[in-house]
């Protein structure tokens, strides 16, 4: 490989970075409040609404956002995925400015799992005093089922997040790529031998507008009338 010092390229836009770390904070909040229960449940619900808005935003951003944020740019064909896995296995260099072929699919799976988690929560009930805002629209039977899946899917999410973190540690210790720092700064060390790929960055105003729209949509969805106590 090239011995010249690496240069830096900007790979992640601000919306992707903010999305990522906010999701970390909110997922942690959701898990903790869900385990604590009691009066913390109101925060469990609010945190879930915020996650829903974030994920909705991220899906749209995956269609209209910057190059490295787009699904079309990071969901590679099975052939590419296998080729990349082989590169990893054989310790061969393989450089992708954004998500690599394995990481890209992982991002999609994580997003869908998180979406299912919040989606099922909207319809869940805990047989104590917490009901998702859309519980009223479905039967108790179906809500109980979705509540069961809400509890099962969080375990799947734990597994996925663990895999995600292990992969990042592997890239760091095994391949000398500090992906965590890149997710904070947006900037990655780029070996000067590797080809530079042109990246386009979308407007931050567009991101802000889309996020506000997502937040309003979630707010309309979850602000249901409360029943009067007796």
């Amino acid at each position, binding site marked *: 490989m090239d011995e010249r010092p690496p240069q830096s390229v900007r790979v992640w836009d601000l919306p992707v970075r903010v999305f990522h770390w906010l999701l970390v904070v909110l997922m942690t909040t959701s898990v903790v409040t869900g385990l604590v229960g009691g009066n*913390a449940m109101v925060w469990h619900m609010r945190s879930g609404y915020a996650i829903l808005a974030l994920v909705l935003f991220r899906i749209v951003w995956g269609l209209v956002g910057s190059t490295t944020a787009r699904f079309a740019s990071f969901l590679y064909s099975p052939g590419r995925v296998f080729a990349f896995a082989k590169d990893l296995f054989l310790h061969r260099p393989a450089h992708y400015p954004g998500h690599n072929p394995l990481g890209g699919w992982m991002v999609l799976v994580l997003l869908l799992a998180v979406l299912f988690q919040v989606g099922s929560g909207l319809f869940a009930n805990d047989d*104590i005093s917490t009901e998702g805002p859309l519980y009223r629209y479905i039967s108790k039977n179906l809500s109980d089922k979705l509540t069961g899946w809400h509890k099962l899917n969080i375990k799947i999410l734990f597994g996925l997040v663990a895999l995600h973190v292990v992969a990042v540690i592997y890239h760091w210790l095994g391949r000398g790529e500090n992906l965590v720092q890149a997710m904070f700064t947006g900037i990655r060390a780029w070996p000067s031998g590797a080809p530079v790929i042109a990246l386009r960055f979308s407007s931050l105003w567009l991101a802000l507008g889309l996020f506000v729209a997502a937040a309003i949509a979630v707010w309309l969805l979850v602000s249901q009338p409360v029943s009067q106590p007796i």
Partner: protein
Amino acid sequence: MKNFVKFGTALALAAGMSTIAYAQIKPEDAIRARQSIMRVNAINFGPVSAMAQEKIPFNKDIFVANALRLESVWAMNPTRFFVPGSDKPVAGARIAAFTDANGEIWSQPEKFKAAYDKETQEIGKLAAAARSGDEKAMKAAAGDVGKACKACHDDFQVKK
């Protein structure tokens, strides 16, 4: 004195009979009884918990009424109705066609009783706070009641 002895005997008999009555309650009736008590708990706890979390405006009268009703309903002790044979719904029974009771209720009775005692204590505190009229104490106690419900459900109510 004679009357006193008679009264005492009657009381003892009544106490004995009520124990027998519960021991002999049909499994499907027992399932219906405990589920009903639980449901009525939830109906009373709902507004208390919603006010404690400021999901609905605090209304002292409604809070106190519900908290005290919860205390009365809990005093029926739902754990008495987990009688032998009620771990599964009775085949063909029209009432209580399901039960979410976890088998550990019968295999770990001390742990189940501890969860019940914990709830009794927390509901006692909630009722005391309601009687004292201290809003902050009421709200905090409601949170602890909810945690005790959850703790028992996590261990003993089957995940659906």
